[in-house]
């Protein structure tokens, strides 16, 4: 029990962010029309590409060649996620806009 309380105190800011973000995510999404489900999924897919920041940090502080190689792969994959995700979403949404 004490461990849990200590854990909470140590990470309280992040726990707050996590809880509030969960509610925010639900709120923001809940009124989306079915038409936009696919673009929305694709757009949020691009947003979790933010994991690339972690990959950059790892690569930026890599000490061995091996971790540099792994970091390199991670950054490439993360970029694929980010760039591919946003471009694909934009392509989809472009079509919705065109016929206005």
């Amino acid at each position: 029990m004490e461990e849990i309380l200590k854990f909470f105190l140590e990470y309280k800011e992040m726990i707050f962010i996590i809880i509030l973000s969960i509610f925010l995510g639900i709120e923001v999404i809940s009124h989306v029309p079915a038409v936009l489900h696919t673009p929305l999924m694709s757009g949020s897919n691009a947003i979790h590409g933010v994991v690339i920041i972690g990959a950059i940090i790892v690569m930026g502080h890599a000490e061995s060649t091996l971790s540099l190689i792994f970091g390199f792969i991670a950054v490439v994959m993360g970029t694929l996620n980010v760039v591919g995700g946003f471009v694909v979403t934009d392509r989809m949404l472009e079509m919705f806009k065109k016929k206005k």
Partner: protein
Amino acid sequence: MEQITKIIEFTSEVSILEISYLVASILFILGLKKLSHPATARSGNLWAAAGMGAAILFTILFHKQNGQPIGNILWILVALAIGSFIGWYASIKVKMTAMPQMVSIFNGMGGACAALISLMEFPKMQNAMALAGDAHMLGGEGIAILLGLMIGGVSFAGSMIAFGKLDGRIGDIKHPILRIINLSFLVVLLVALIVILYMQPIENNNLPIYLFALAALIYGVTFVMPIGGADMPVVISLLNSFTGVAAAMGGFLYGNQAMLTGGILVGSSGTILTILMCKAMNRSLLNVIIGAFGVAGAAGTEDGDKTVKEISLSDAAVLLSYSQKVYIVPGYGLAVAQAQHLCHELDNLLSSKGVEVKYAIHPVAGRMPGHMNVLLAEADVPYEKLVEMEDANNEMANTDVVMVIGANDVVNPAAEDDPSSPIYGMPIIKVLDSKNIIVMKRSMAAGYAAIPNNLFYHQKNRMLFGDAKATLQKLVAEIKSL
């Protein structure tokens, strides 16, 4: 004096970085918000992209770990360039029908990225803890690393399998034993997670973490393998939210707010989206995950001799031309045949003859919810003509002809009247309420969910066999010559 200026400089760089993360988080939230409204969706996507760009740029410029700035910058830029080029090129080239596969691959990349980060951070943490003489690795850092590795790995392997299934490279393996293997792997993973946390840190003792990563990958495969092809949209959406959580674990590890908010936002909104999709198919998430679809009930409707009535092209042309109101029910078959443009041509032609033509869109038509809307939008079909299922069902009674093109499960009456059917309870487009039905189909084969469809044998229905594109072409020509 010199020291003081140094400290101020140091903190101002860090604050710029933190402010950029705050801005990025706000842009993610606003972007998602705007993405949920048709008029603002495109700009929402760009806002989120701008937030991402800022977060990446400022991380490279100002991030410091133990006072050390980011090194290997040249290599990082090369990696960014390679990833950007491949990602951009693949997205430009992909056909709209293959969109779900593409999203699945990108999602897998994100998951793999998260897993790799954990895989590299674990040895660092363990070595540091071994030096400090800690008794175990239980703590926020260890939990974040292991969860990031597990969820990221599952998401990566699962997304690759989902890609293979959608692309028709991997079939469904629906053996009941898979369910047991599946569950036992999950148990093994969770137990291993706890065991590793309680292990004494020993320098360079990395075998357990590699085995753990391998187990996560295998679980990702066995997790998606038994799930039927028709449920892939739900799975992709679920894996999407998984990757979000994996990214958030990275944020927790580095105390990085942009990763944390971005990841959790996707995790929670992705979960809601998944549940919305399940609701549209009237299935529980648990049911989807266990993968019971399509095994039972497939043999439930073998009663009596059934005859199929065909309709000739000219009869179909006449019937359509002299109707007042026509509904088109498009399915994935239409998209596969790349016939959405022809479909729009048919609709224009009929409209010019005074026929009211609309499209009834089932929420899960296509391979992802809303996929059909994207495909029809690509063919310039006006937004107002796309009618959502419930509204379309209300209008069915005064519809003269319903033309089902390449759709099957979403019009299967078994969902309403056959409790033994696996899709029983799924809302469908009630085409039987209309006066005439024409089903355009390649053959009598069952749909994607592999469930027989009694609609084809119904007295109101007539079949128009052939490839959707070729048949539509002929039909358009026939109507023109009337």
